[in-house]
Each structure stands twice: as structure tokens, then as C-alpha cells.
């Protein structure tokens, strides 16, 4: 060991490695004689599975780059030795570099120069001699504190990148396992901890909103196709008396359950009617759902018409394409209240505010439509509100023939 140190010292002084019979080439850059004149002022190291590289910045602006890569040891791109992966020199070098981030540059250079070369093997000693020869000397007095314990630095296990990668793979496996467990928990209906924000959840919400639009539009188009007059009458009721429709819907909602109970009791009292109680319940639920959805569609129809700034003449049914367009516009308009909720629901406070706002708005619209459905008897009986004032139409305009009409008596030859 002493001999090896002496060899290293000679190498540092002479810039060559004696005794090996094959002196490595002197590294490019600064001659060893100038090494003592400059100071190490900075360093950067890079460790990967294949390469362990150290760059030392010197006070004269030059750099010393030492690299172990592919079995070759290079100093400033000049090959100065060789190593085998995992040999003592490779491990010692990597151990030193793994601690380089915690050392100041003088400490690192001091430690490198103080590294015992005996345990490194002949190749390692030779390479280390060339490395220390390229680095400037650092006296103990240049260190801010106590000199680093070199044997402790090298003796400790270096940070193994392979081990980190193994840990990473293990963590990835554990995360995957956790996801599977979370999926199972979700399936079993237990609420697990959820992230405050999730793109996948947002995408699901957007798809859900779009699906709702498509479903309601389909129902609306069906209503416009099969029962256009009823939808128009309900919509007309909403347009003429929105407040009254809302109030009717508001007060009707608490009466739904008593009405259902009354219906059931009435059927039960008739004895025979007991048989149809299940059917009556289903029919009642369907009727309420139809009234709510139909009313909501009617509101959408009105909103869409307002949006399009088109006014339908009083008393005329608009079952053409414009009615479909109004309905679609209205549905988009009404459902757009949910767009901020879908996008921002993960935000604390604001997300809840938006959700409640959208919920109340939708409830109000549905209630208004529900009330209008009740007031207009589902568009089948009469229209609620004032009778529309129809403009007087001149009798002359009741005829469309360009030929002036002849009185009946004249046609019969009476005139």
C-alpha cells in the first residue's frame, strides 16, 4: 500500500506512472506541474449504470474531466487505464462520486487525492495515479473544516442505481396492487380516498353531460315528432306564465307522495283495485317522470326560441325543423350550467358552489316545466293564461286566388 502511494505521488510529480512498463499517455489540458498553481473551484458528477463521470472546474477556467465508461478510464478524453465493472476501483470511484454532491470541491479533490490505491488493484492504482496527477493539490488548510474521512466515504456502500431501479419497480408493482385493491373497494361500494383532481373523472363527467344532452334531445325530438301540439302548449304555458308555472310545480311536488298514497288507498278500498296497485304505482311514477322531463323539454324549447330570437305566432304550432332547432339550442343552454361543474368540481368551495348552483337551476327549470305541464293538463286540455289577442285579418286576405271572387249569385246567373 505504501508502495502504491509512493507510485501515485511519483505519478503526480512526474506526470507518468513508473513501474508499469507501459506509461499511460499524459492527459490533455493542464500539465501536472501547473496543478499546484490552480485551485479546484467547482465540480459536477454524473452517475449512470454505464458511466461515472466527474468534471472538476479549476480556477484558471479549465476543466478536468474524468470518466469511467465502457471499461476505459479517461482523463480529458485521454485513456489512462482500464477497469472492469464491479472491480474495487469501479466501486470505489462510484462510491466517491455518489458522495460528491455532499462535498465541497476542495473536499472532493482532497478525498480523491487521499484515496488509498492499494485496495484498488494494479489497474486501479495506475488509473488513480493518472487521475490524481491531473488534479491540483489541495492542502488541508484550504478545507473549511476537518478533512473528509476517505475510508468512510469509500467504505460505505455507494448509492446503487440498480437498487434504486429495483425499488422503483417494486413501488410500481405496489401501486398497481393498490389500484387493484382500490378498484375492488369501489366495486364493493366503499368510498376510498380519492384524488382531489382527476382528468379521467373529468372526462367521464364530460361524457356523462354529453350523454344527457343526447338522451334529452332524443326524447325531445320524439315528443316533437309524435305529440308536437302538446309540447307546444306546455311550452306556451311556460312562456306566458313562468312564475305561475314555477309556483304550481313547487306546490305540486310535496303533494306527489300524498297523491300516490291516496291513489293506492283508493284502489285498495275497491278490493278489486288491489290487483292493479303495482301497475298504478309504476304508472304514477312514469307519469311524474314524463311530466318532469316533458316540462323540462318545454322549458328548453322556450329558452331555445328566445335564444334564436324567433317568436312563434300565437296559436300556431311550429312542428317544422325550427322547433327541433329551438329544442336543441335550449337543451344546450340549460345543460351548459353543468359545464363549469364538470370542469371545476375538484376545486374546494367553488366546486361545491357551482354544483349547488347548477342543481338549483336545473331543479327550478324542471319545476317550472312540471308546473306548466300540470296547468296545461299536459298540453291536452286548454292553455293556461290569457287568450291570445289575434289580430283582425281582413276578409280580403282570406282568399289567396289572384282572380277576384265572384259572388255566388253571380255564378248562378242571378245577376
Amino acid at each position, binding site marked *: 500500500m505504501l508502495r502504491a502511494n509512493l507510485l501515485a505521488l511519483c505519478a503526480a510529480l512526474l506526470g507518468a506512472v513508473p513501474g508499469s512498463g507501459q506509461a499511460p499517455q499524459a492527459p490533455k489540458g493542464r500539465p501536472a506541474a501547473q496543478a499546484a498553481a490552480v*485551485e*479546484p*473551484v*467547482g*465540480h*459536477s*458528477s*454524473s*452517475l*449512470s*449504470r454505464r458511466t461515472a463521470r466527474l468534471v472538476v*472546474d479549476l*480556477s484558471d*477556467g479549465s476543466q478536468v474531466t474524468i470518466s469511467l465508461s465502457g471499461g476505459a478510464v479517461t482523463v480529458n478524453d485521454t485513456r489512462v487505464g482500464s477497469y472492469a465493472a464491479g472491480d474495487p476501483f469501479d466501486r470505489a470511484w462510484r462510491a466517491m*462520486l*455518489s458522495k*460528491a*454532491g*455532499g*462535498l*465541497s*470541491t*476542495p473536499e*472532493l479533490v482532497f478525498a480523491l487525492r487521499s484515496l488509498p490505491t492499494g485496495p484498488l488493484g494494479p489497474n486501479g492504482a495506475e488509473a488513480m495515479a493518472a487521475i490524481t496527477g491531473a488534479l491540483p493539490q489541495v492542502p488541508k488548510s484550504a478545507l*473549511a473544516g476537518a478533512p473528509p474521512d476517505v475510508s468512510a466515504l469509500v467504505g460505505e456502500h455507494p*448509492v446503487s*442505481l440498480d437498487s*434504486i*431501479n429495483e*425499488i*422503483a*419497480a417494486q*413501488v*410500481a*408493482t405496489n*401501486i*398497481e396492487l393498490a*389500484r387493484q385493491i382500490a378498484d375492488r373497494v369501489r366495486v364493493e361500494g366503499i368510498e376510498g380516498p380519492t*384524488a382531489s*383532481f*382527476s*382528468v*379521467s373523472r373529468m372526462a367521464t363527467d364530460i361524457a356523462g353531460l354529453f350523454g344527457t344532452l343526447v338522451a334529452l334531445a332524443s326524447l325531445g325530438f320524439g315528443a316533437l315528432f309524435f305529440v308536437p301540439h302538446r309540447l307546444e302548449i306546455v311550452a306556451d304555458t311556460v312562456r306566458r306564465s313562468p312564475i305561475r308555472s314555477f309556483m304550481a310545480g313547487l306546490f305540486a311536488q310535496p303533494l306527489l307522495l300524498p297523491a300516490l298514497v291516496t291513489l293506492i288507498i283508493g284502489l285498495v278500498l275497491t278490493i278489486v283495485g288491489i290487483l292493479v296497485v303495482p301497475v298504478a304505482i309504476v304508472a304514477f311514477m312514469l307519469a311524474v317522470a314524463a311530466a318532469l322531463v316533458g316540462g323540462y323539454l318545454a322549458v328548453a324549447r322556450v329558452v331555445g326560441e328566445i335564444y334564436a330570437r324567433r317568436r312563434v305566432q300565437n296559436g300556431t304550432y311550429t312542428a317544422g325543423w325550427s322547433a327541433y332547432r329551438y329544442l336543441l339550442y335550449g337543451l344546450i343552454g340549460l345543460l351548459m350550467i353543468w359545464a363549469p361543474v364538470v370542469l*371545476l368540481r*375538484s*376545486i*374546494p*368551495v*367553488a366546486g361545491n*358552489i*357551482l354544483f349547488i348552483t347548477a342543481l338549483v337551476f336545473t331543479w327550478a327549470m324542471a319545476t317550472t316545466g312540471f308546473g306548466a305541464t300540470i296547468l296545461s293538463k299536459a298540453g291536452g286540455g286548454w292553455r293556461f293564461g290569457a287568450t291570445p289577442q289575434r289580430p283582425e285579418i281582413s276578409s280580403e286576405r282570406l282568399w289567396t286566388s289572384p282572380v277576384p271572387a265572384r259572388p255566388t249569385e253571380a255564378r248562378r246567373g242571378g245577376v
Partner: protein
Amino acid sequence: MIRAPLPALWIVGWSFASAASSPSAAAGVAWLAGAPRPAHAQDFRTTSGSRQRRGESELSARVEFAVGDLRIAPGATGTLYRYELVYDADRFDPIASYHPETHRLRVGVDGRGHGDLSYRNRPHQRLDLNLSPATPVALDLAFGAGTADVELGGLSLTSVKVKAGAAETTVKVSEPNRISCRFLMVEIGAIDFQTEKLGNARCERIEVKGGAANLVLDLTGQWTEGATSEVDIAVGLGSVTLRLPESVGLEADVERFLVNFDRSGLLRRGPNYYSPNWDTAKTRLRINLKAALGDIAVEWAK
């Protein structure tokens, strides 16, 4: 009372525009998505660096860290900077450069734009950075996703800029800044952002722009004696907790839209709010707060 809805809505728009335009924020969103993906072998590498102080009059430090754990703290006086970076070489390229002529340090990682970041990358990718307390530092920090623990106490700060996407970020100034600081600017996206003793930064101006964030702004600490400092806060969509020092005179101009504002301890005079000691205090803070859709809470500290 609802005041100035349009600026407030602008804040909301700005928040999302800035969040969407930030690649690091996009990385954060990708990370937050956390969609399960098949595991693959990762290639983590380590790079570190250090430089001795040699009479530098200033240091401009820019940190760009897309995802992972970031720690910034004061280092040894004789060391200008020191960093240690562990990164995933499959997805990121390391950034580490220092120009002795301009005293500019740039450190961090640069994503390769694969856009398939996931949660499992986060725990192992990390950056530890120490800066010299003795050298005046202009710190520019851009941070994407993960966690950031930034301790600026005891440094010599001339200015601080922090941009954070989707992350849990803590900025502490445990000890007073050694010199006076021109400004501290914070732009944050959808994150939990905590601060401690920002008064110790001794900045003439503090500016915080937040997106969808949970923001704790601790304005306690040793403000520059006898000075009046400005604090501009613009936050959309989120909650803001203001931790205010009792020893400093406060004036708050609050513009809010759909925001619950807990003004306990503040007196209203005209359009603004004032602390009881505003007229007598030598050291004063002017707070301009614009917020939309959220919650503002006030806590007092001695």
C-alpha cells in the same frame, strides 16, 4: 357585497390560461391523472455539482424541475451552490450549467415531452439544491408536479420568482433575508401552496397569482422597519388563508366575486379594510386582494 365581477372573472380566466399554457402544469396534470400504465424498467441517474464561492457579487439561479421532490435550502457560506439530482433518464434530460462570467446557474430536469408521467416517477426523482447565504441570489423557480420544500431563510435574496403547476409547495423564510429584496413573485396553478414567514424575505413587493389553489399566505416575520410594502394577491377558484402579523399596520383592498371573506380583526373605512394599528404603525403592509369563487380566511399572529 359583490364588487368588480369582471376583474374577478378575468382572474379565473387567467388562472386557467396560465395553467394550460405551462408545460410543467401539463406534466402535473398528467401526473395527477395517475392512470395505470404498464410498469417498465426505469433508468435513474444521479448528477451532482458544487462550486466554491470566489467573491461573486451575485448569483442568478434558475431551477426548472418538471416533476419530483424538490428541496432548496441555504448551504455552507463558502459554497456558492451545491446540488444533487436524481432523475429518470428515460423521460428527462438533466439540466446543470453554470456560467462563471454571468454567474448564472441553471439546474433541474427537462422532460422529453412523452407526456406519460405517472405517480410512480415522483418519489425517486429529486433535486436538492443549496445556495450560499453570503452571495446575493436572484432565484427563479419553475416547478411542475410533485412536492417542493423551499427554505429561503438566511439567504441573501435580491428577488424570487416561483412558478408552480400542480404541486404541493411550501416556501419558508424562517430567518430574515440578509439584504433587501426587490420582489417575490409567485404564480401557481392547481396546487396546495403554503408559505411561512414571508415577512422575513423583506421584499418591497410580494405578488401572488393563483389558479385553482389552496393558498396559505403567511405574512408574518420581520418586515423592513419603517417601510411600506405592497402585497398583491390575485386568486381565482380556491381558498386563501391570510396569516397576518399584529405588529404591522395593514390596509387591505379587497375585490371579490362570490367569495366568502372573513374580515375578523379588520376595520372597514371607506372602500378598504384596516388593522386597528394602521395609523400608528411604522411598518405597513398594503394588501391588494382580488379573488373569485372561493373563500378568504384571516388569521392573526403575534
